[in-house]
């Protein structure tokens, strides 16, 4: 694989695999939770529909993020981007949960 044109090294594959599967799952979970909160608390959708809508979206999100993890040009920028959005989503979720309780 490396021999062909040297674009993909072994370490990079590992970094991309971790980004594509476990990191992706964490990020997608955070995004799903945020969407569920946003739809219910922010846009007045009833909580059951908000939760289900977010869940339905989550599978498409996971699949796209997995592709991005392998397609992104730079693995460093990929990880910076993952960490940044993960942090943003985490903080948003934390604020949302402390502002309004769950059912």
């Amino acid at each position: 694989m490396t021999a062909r044109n040297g674009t993909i090294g072994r370490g990079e594959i590992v970094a991309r695999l971790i980004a594509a599967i476990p990191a992706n799952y964490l990020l997608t979970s955070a995004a799903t939770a945020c969407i569920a909160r946003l739809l219910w608390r922010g846009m007045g959708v009833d909580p059951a529909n908000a939760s289900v809508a977010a869940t339905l979206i989550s599978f498409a999100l996971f699949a796209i993020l997995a592709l991005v993890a392998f397609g992104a040009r730079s693995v460093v920028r990929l990880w910076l981007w993952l960490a940044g959005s993960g942090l943003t989503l985490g903080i948003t979720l934390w604020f949302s949960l402390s502002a309004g309780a769950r059912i």
Partner: protein
Amino acid sequence: MKDSLRQSMALFHTWSGLLLGWLLFAMFATGTAAYFQDEITRWMQPEVTGDADPATAAQGAMRYLNSVAPDAKSWYISLPNSRSATTQVYWQPSGERPAKRVETSALLDRGGHAITSRETRGGFFLYRFHFDLHYMPVLWARYLVGVAAMFMLVAILSGVITHKKIFADFFMLRFGKGQRSWLDAHNVTAVLALPFHLMITFTGLVTLASMYMPWGIAANYAEQTAFSEAVFGRSAETVPSGRHAPLADLGPLVRNASARWNDERVGYISIANPNDAAALIEMSRAPEAAFGARGQTATFEGATGRAIGTHQATGSALATESVMIGLHTGRFAEWGLRWLYFLSGLGGTVMVGSGLVLWTVKRRARLSDPSCPHLGFRIVERLNIAAIAGLATGIAVYFLANRLLPLEMVDRAEREIDSLFLAWLGIGLWGILRPAGRAWTEALAIAGACFAAIPLANAMTTSRGLLPSLLAGDWTFVAFDLVMLVLAAGFLLAAVRSAQLRTKAKAGAKPRGANRRATSA
């Protein structure tokens, strides 16, 4: 840049496809069979004939349950649909100790009498195997299946990117060209039913969504039960009062519920605390009655039969989810659409299978010494034989066992299932012990022979063979035997082809190898 993107997608597609391809093949094959699970069950219970009326069946089920488990914690009745004739009942005993499934379930005929002869799990087993697997905890199986389905979704998307000319190549099915033909077969089956593959994979994930991605629900609900109540309208476990009160007749209540739903059939009945003053009866609309799988429910007081209320989940997201599950299971489908589902599923099975074979065909061309391939290659080759020819033989043997095992055998249904896995294991071992090329031919021939034997065994052991069924206009039995013959022909043809390829390869090993290298470059 574009090329490196495509290259990394190709890498991802190849390896994720290989890693989970074997499991996906089994899921696709048994899931495809599950579109005809009721017809398979009918074939596997040749003594049961005719149709059943839900109200009569419910009343019969109640009689049966009152005789075997009058003081159970709960009863669960799965009524016959328009394609089946039997009622499945389960109960949860009042004791603390969880009992074995066979001791707390029964299959009833339309009059409510337990069917004890030729005990079988029928097509239902193939349906459950496609997401619950077997010989392992259901929870693990479902996570494993979910991982495979997600890889499948990503593999489809990356496949479209990898084969940049996928849509143009669609019109190029070249037979007898070695690797090129396998790639063509993979592409044609992939593109022909691409919308189906995307739909079936995505909706498959949706059927078990709350298991795989529970965080959307957890973000809004501290208690999962509060969410269930909003969706299913089910009140939490009702507490028994301890006072005895006979359960109201179920037959009239089934008719009552049906009448509320424009005569749509009742599919399931669950009863909490039967024969207690606090008994609660809940009926759900049959999933076949509409596009959306999740229909209305009606609740009745158990002792009096008084209607308490109806429930229907509302909202666009829940409706979307319900339709997605309906699309996946296809219970609403009439004959024409059902066959289309079946053919698309077969296409998916061939797509996964040809992808697996492609992996070895492509790498064989690059082997430094094709007569002695490296270990990884050999493992994949053998696993392919086990997964493809082995599963096919297993399913054929499952049907054969249904006709050939003694009718009154103890735990007969389980022995039928064991037969499937024993045959599968047998072919797997055969593939390891024999030279790979020969093993393919032989295993495919065995699979073909087993499928061909099914109509024979049917004709010899029952009065519902192909000819009598044809004369009687019994199309379910006719179609079943014919599909078995078509499968037999397909596997035997594949066996002949693989034998021809082997002799051809032997005759001109050197020039052919050189040729392949040239086309793959």
